[in-house]
């Protein structure tokens, strides 16, 4: 089977990030790579750039990676993490403007069908656009 877009979930809380990833795996299946990170570098609530970079690399696919975030800091840190990737990977990663749980499930469903990164992002963002 051809590669599918990877999904990264970034929350301020590790529990929320892990729970969202669990839901995606259970609802959509295991054919889509899902990685998550949550919490600051000391394990408190927050988000951290090195953790996001690791998650992107864990979920990496030749089709790219779509990131779903919860609150503002998660978005800022995710954008920063993307900029710190190797240049050729940077344009293969998008941060979706979508609710974290619904967006992750919808993005993964779209990814499972072999869709492109842009299609996956568009589906995740359908909820915000509508």
């Amino acid at each position, binding site marked *: 089977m051809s590669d599918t877009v990877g999904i990264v979930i970034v929350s301020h809380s590790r529990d929320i990030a892990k729970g969202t990833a669990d839901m995606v795996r259970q609802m959509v299946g295991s054919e889509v790579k899902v990685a998550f990170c949550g919490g*600051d*570098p*000391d394990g*408190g*609530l*927050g*988000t*951290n*750039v*090195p953790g996001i970079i690791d998650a992107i690399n864990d979920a990496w696919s030749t089709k790219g990676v779509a990131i779903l975030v919860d*609150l*503002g*800091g998660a978005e*800022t*840190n995710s*954008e*920063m993490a993307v900029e*710190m990737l190797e240049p050729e990977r940077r344009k293969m990663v998008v941060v979706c403007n979508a609710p974290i749980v619904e967006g992750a499930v919808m993005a993964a469903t779209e990814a499972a069908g072999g869709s492109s990164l842009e299609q996956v992002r568009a589906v995740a963002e359908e909820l915000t656009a509508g």
Partner: protein
Amino acid sequence: MTLQPDTFKSLVKVAAEQVIASAPELTALDQAIGDGDHGTNMKRGFEAVLSKLDTIGAQPLDEAFKTIGKTLVMTVGGASGPLYGSFFLAAGEALAGKKLPEDLADVFGSGVNAVSARGRSHAGEKTMLDVLVPVLETLKADAGREDLIERVRTAASEAVARTAPMQATKGRASFLGARSVGHVDPGAKSSCLLLHAVCSTLEARQ
């Protein structure tokens, strides 16, 4: 005023120590209108900067700025990491081929623009930009003046105080709406602390 390598190293040291010492105050401000982690986050970031002080002191200035920026990005956590990190990364980028103090306003301005772009924010929204932008104006308007340092110090203090009556429209504090009024912004405060530490060190070396 010229910037010697060991002056820069002590600037970084004093500024980092100032932020670390002020962590409880920053946290208290952030508990009022944010999620209460600004002090701890900044402390963690600047402790990491201190641990690299020898490397930073030995690097050319533009590289040193980028090391500081990257260290803050990787260790602070929260939104302040990318915001402060972007300031130093962009300022380091802008430093290449420039001279201090002649091009200070240019370099500082590049950092301010990067913060604005990263946070998709502008002055007037109760953020660190409400200190950085007035300080940039002072650097531009008063460049070359004998009392530039004193003017920067005053500009920063006054700018922090002006954030208290503002209503936040960006960041976590914006969720509070009108309830954010009456509290000084923690990011503005930490920017002011850093600038004051730099001013004091430069004055002591004059």
